[in-house]
């Protein structure tokens, strides 16, 4: 399956805001943050269903999350991930002298990942930081 070129936005969602208060190790948090909101037309192009696994990659890394049909469509080829560890593994630390990395409008690729799992927070921490 071909990779599809997209622009990645990251940001707050109300679900991320409320589930954070249930604890970052809770299943609510993972369900609301380890996701990617995708335009229905892009989902169709990749023959993806709601909640199937999708791999998002940027030049900094890649992560597998759940694909969710966006309720904020149309925004073809623009994907949206809530703030959190999953999204930030894709972000570049370069700030171009401002102190602020770019969290929005990042060139990225997405592809279906039926054979990969969405890692839980402890699994992801262990994989990335080799600690804990």
């Amino acid at each position, binding site marked *: 399956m071909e990779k599809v070129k997209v622009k990645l936005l990251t940001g707050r969602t109300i679900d991320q805001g409320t589930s954070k208060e249930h604890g970052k190790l809770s299943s609510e948090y993972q369900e609301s943050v380890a996701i990617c909101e995708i335009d229905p037309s892009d989902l169709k192009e990749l023959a993806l269903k709601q909640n199937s696994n999708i791999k998002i990659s940027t030049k900094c890394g890649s992560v597998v999350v759940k694909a969710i049909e966006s309720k904020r469509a149309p925004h073809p080829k623009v994907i949206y991930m809530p703030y959190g560890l999953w999204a930030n593994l894709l972000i570049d630390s370069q700030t171009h002298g401002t102190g602020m*990395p770019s969290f929005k409008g990042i060139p990225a690729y997405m592809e279906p990942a039926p054979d990969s799992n969405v890692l839980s927070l402890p699994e992801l921490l262990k994989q990335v930081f080799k600690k804990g």
Partner: protein
Amino acid sequence: MSVIENVTCPVCGTLCDDLAVTVEDGFITDVKNACAIGEAKFMNFSNPNHRNLKPLIRKEGELVETSLEEAVRKSAEILVASSYPILYGWSCTGCESIRVGIELAEEVGGVIDNTSTVCHGPSILAIQDVGIPTCTLGQIRHRADLIVYWASDPYSAHPRHLERYTSFSGGRFQKSEWEHYVARLRGILGRKRISRTSERMLTKDVSMPAISGEKLPPYFETKKRKLIVVDVRKTRSAEHADFFMQVEPNKDFELLQAMRLLVKDGELEVEEVAGIPVDLMEDVVDTMIGCDFGVIFFGVGLTMSAGKHQNINSAIALTQDLNFRTKFSIMPMRGHFNVAGANIVSTWQTGYPFAVDFSQGFPRYNPGETSVVDILRRDQADAGLIIASDPVSNFPKKAAENLVKNPLIAIDPVISPTTLMADVVFPASFVGIETEGTAYRMDRVPLPMKKLVEPPQNCQSDKVILTRILEQVRLIKKENELG
């Protein structure tokens, strides 16, 4: 059972101070007036499954329980031994703790930076460049007849902002749009009823013209406060807007500059800019010029995308241009409840709002060099103290990796990826629930945060923990001097 009134919500920069919290036997059992996020905080903060309840220290790779004294001693040792520690977080604690934190940063010759470095840092850079015409939220509530949310979705991040200060709030000179929506709905239903009755009476003319579609007579259209939303997606806030401009990602700067041209009566010789048809842009600009008092609220959508502080520069310049035609203000939508306070305390103590470097014995400020993400990207820090924040989740990967590989101290009421990766963990109490304090709202109005219940046994306030670390640092330094 007691109901505590006028409680300030310790979640977002809207800092709603009208909550009513019911406390029974030392537990919070109900909260009124809060939004979903505020309520989730009050109803879940004490859940022991996600709280840090004991001081922890890392031994042989594992976090194990320890005493507060041991945790304080270990933290002080880490800080004294390091040559370039970073002290980061500060936006979810009270001003009183931030003040102690700055003293600690100076004592250990470290860098103190707050979370605005990765949210509205660029806004601060722009404000330092060109100034800012702004006001308080009270003035907006009472007087503003045009609200613009640019790259900000209050429904998701500041849920009660619309209801308390803008479109859905009722001010002295401005009616709430909420009442208008309800009146409009009633009007439509009423007219349908009349029309049905008149049809039943088999007469088409009962002194009222026939209803055509959903259109209402002009007296129902006296809509005062107008709402404009500019965003890269059709957000929930955009659904309520009179005008919505869906700008292409990373093109806000172009759109802002084009609008500045229109405000100055210039002409655009193109069909569209940044994905927005010029016709729509002209309507929006006419509405902006036509209002009595407008305000632009901008979110991190502007600071985090291409252009960064240049986007804010041009948003402020647009506001300044509009002030030649009418009255206009602009305000950043601050995220965490006391991130504005972190900037303010840092400014009054050191002269600089964030990214303050004490390594040379005096405060230095040069975002891009002394900002924490850059220090971590260049791998220059050799220890970290994180308070009331979760940079392991929120920083870009490389910065987070370099933070974690150094000795790390975390002060936080809740378990987070940062506390899980830390070498020393302090269980803190929640400011605004278990400890009192002061926080600054997004319009820089300070508000008191109340203590509602007692913290769990081993949880101390941020201020107490920091003060103890500071005392211990001074003690160790003195011992070192004496040899």
